């Protein structure tokens, strides 16, 4: 058998068995799932021949199938470090792809906001489009196999000032286990939402793989402040794709923090699909040891007068590898686009590497697009300056590394969230 056929066969059984579960869904969902599985089966997992995976070798994921059996649900105590207690009351906890009623706290769910698990809703999501399924194998596999999705609706004009956390917990138990998670958020007209989407892992002897798909749909004038905090175990695989659809005058900001995993791949596909929509993507990623972290972002300026801003920063040590690919598409109608992209990486060791690529595809003439990349090591002159004032070498290093990261941390809009994310990042930096 060819590798692709082997991979398809490996998941075919799981897919076939899934048909009989209630979570598989209605006829409409069935069609979507069949199409998705067919797309996955046709191409299998990507290889380095695939342009989008040129520097990201996913053979460790492809080489053997993942089951769906995880360890038992963790205790609330085990989750405490991840709950941002005091900063966030509403917690939607998903364990190995399944909503946990006992671990979730929804009493404080802001008025009007609904969270349900209707699979049908997903068929309308940008991630479910046929073209997407055909070209993104992990999304296709997720679409075939995800259990009940989390569908969050924010009604028009609702102002949700307290952040809501959706916490995905992966507990691999003894086996190779893939959690196919699915989150869909619809922010109604002129609504406001702060959402923290966290991925955490509890160490097990098995190998955990989170295959996550998130859709965020912003209706006219909606404002969404989104945080993705990915801090799984050092052995975990995480492949996540977020699809953002921005209607007229809406405003989407994403802050992505990735601190853990053996292989982490994040895709962001944002479409500015209405005039005056604005999108900001901030990212900070840390990797050490032999971890690989890949951020692919794609901002599609489909309509005129849309600004987008993107700043991604990485800190790498050991033999870590990073990939950054920032694509900006400006469609013929998207005049007066103002797109800014920056990515910087700080290499703390000689053997850490990064492949970085801006990818600008511009089909309109009256636009402003800028991009810049900077890769470097700690500034020796700055190190000496700090030490010459009495600051010990390790402290001087930390000051400079924190300053580099601080640029992204300072963009967090809610103080209580910022303090906690800072702690997570500083702890991860300490372990690099």
């Amino acid at each position: 058998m060819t590798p692709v056929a082997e991979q398809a066969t490996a998941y075919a059984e799981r897919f076939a068995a899934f048909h009989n579960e209630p979570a598989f869904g209605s006829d409409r969902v069935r069609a979507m799932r069949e199409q998705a599985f067919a797309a996955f089966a046709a191409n299998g997992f990507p290889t380095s021949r695939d342009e989008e995976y040129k520097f990201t070798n996913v053979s460790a994921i492809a080489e053997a199938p993942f089951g769906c059996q995880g360890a038992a649900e963790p205790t609330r105590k085990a989750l405490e470090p991840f709950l941002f207690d005091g900063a966030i009351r509403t917690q939607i906890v998903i364990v190995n792809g399944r909503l946990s009623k006992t671990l979730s706290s929804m009493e404080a769910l802001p008025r009007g906001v609904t969270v349900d698990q209707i699979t049908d809703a997903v068929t309308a999501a940008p991630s479910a489009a046929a073209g997407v399924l055909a070209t993104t194998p992990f999304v296709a596999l997720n679409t075939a196999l995800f259990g009940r999705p989390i569908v969050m609706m924010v009604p028009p004009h609702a102002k949700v000032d307290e952040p809501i956390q959706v916490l995905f917990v992966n507990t691999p138990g003894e086996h190779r286990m893939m959690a196919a998670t699915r989150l869909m958020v619809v922010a109604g007209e002129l609504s406001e939402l702060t959402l923290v989407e966290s991925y955490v892992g509890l160490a097990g002897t098995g190998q955990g793989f989170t295959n996550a798909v998130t859709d965020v749909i912003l209706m006219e004038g909606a404002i969404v402040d989104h945080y993705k905090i990915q801090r799984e175990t050092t052995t975990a695989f995480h492949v996540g794709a977020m699809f953002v659809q921005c209607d007229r005058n809406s405003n989407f900001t994403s802050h992505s923090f990735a601190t853990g995993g053996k292989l982490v791949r994040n895709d962001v596909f944002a479409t500015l699909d209405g005039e005056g929509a604005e999108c900001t993507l901030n990212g900070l990623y840390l990797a050490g040891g032999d971890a690989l972290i890949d951020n692919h972002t794609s901002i599609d300026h489909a309509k005129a007068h849309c600004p987008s801003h993107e700043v991604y920063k990485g800190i790498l040590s050991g033999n870590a590898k990073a990939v950054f690919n920032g694509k900006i598409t400006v469609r013929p109608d998207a005049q007066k686009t103002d797109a800014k992209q920056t990515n910087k990486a700080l290499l703390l060791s000689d053997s850490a590497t990064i492949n970085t690529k801006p990818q600008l595809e511009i089909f309109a003439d009256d636009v402003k697009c800028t991009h810049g990349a900077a890769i470097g090591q700690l500034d020796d002159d700055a190190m000496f300056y700090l030490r010459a004032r009495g600051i010990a070498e390790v402290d001087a290093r930390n000051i400079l590394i924190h300053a580099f990261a601080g640029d992204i941390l300072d963009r967090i809009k809610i103080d209580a969230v910022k303090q906690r994310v800072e702690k997570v990042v500083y702890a991860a930096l300490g372990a690099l």
Partner: protein
Amino acid sequence: MLLEIKDLKVKAEDKQILKGLNLSVNPGEVHAIMGPNGSGKSTLARVLSGHPGYEPNGGSVTYDGHDLLAMSPEERACEGVFMAFQYPVEIPGVNNSYFLKAALNAVRKHKGLQELDAVEFLALIREKIKLLEMDQSMLNRAVNEGFSGGEKKRNEIFQMAVLEPRLAILDETDSGLDIDALKVVANGVNALRNKDRAIIVVTHYQRLLDYIVPDFVHVLSGGLIVRSGGKELALELEAKGYR
């Protein structure tokens, strides 16, 4: 004696820069070092502060009875050695007052003193900043980032005022200052003169020495101190050049 440099040889990237330099400095003294471009003045300042790019390959430096060259840059600073940089370094993202607090507390800790809390620290720097006629807002900016040349030099002396070193080496702190800033910086330095503190000022201009009057003037040329004298030597050098 606070500082005794004997037959010091220093190289950087295979270039022998200092070639057997001697200098002795007692507490309370102010020494001026003058000399042509490229003669090794900054190299001396850097090697005294422990810059890793400069390798001593002969001679000795004794500071307060200890082998200075065996100490790390931070140990030297904690023991009271301070260099005002000819080109102060910009450090984006590091708040000036945060930096200074970290530095001061490192020095205090080393001396066995209680570290200052935020309130005590603020009170201290409010006091010291007046000396340099600096705007408070400078404290909340990133270290030297976007500072004008004059602001950077003032910031150096401000740090000196806060850290209270026993040996300060001021590398061309006067270069590029306008006359007002020059006076402010010189007044700041003079205010920090006392019987326990020694200061080495590196300068190209006799003018600075009108404001900071030295006890000794040395000429550094070709990696050696070639002449030494009193403050009148500076006037002679200005009139006749270094030859």
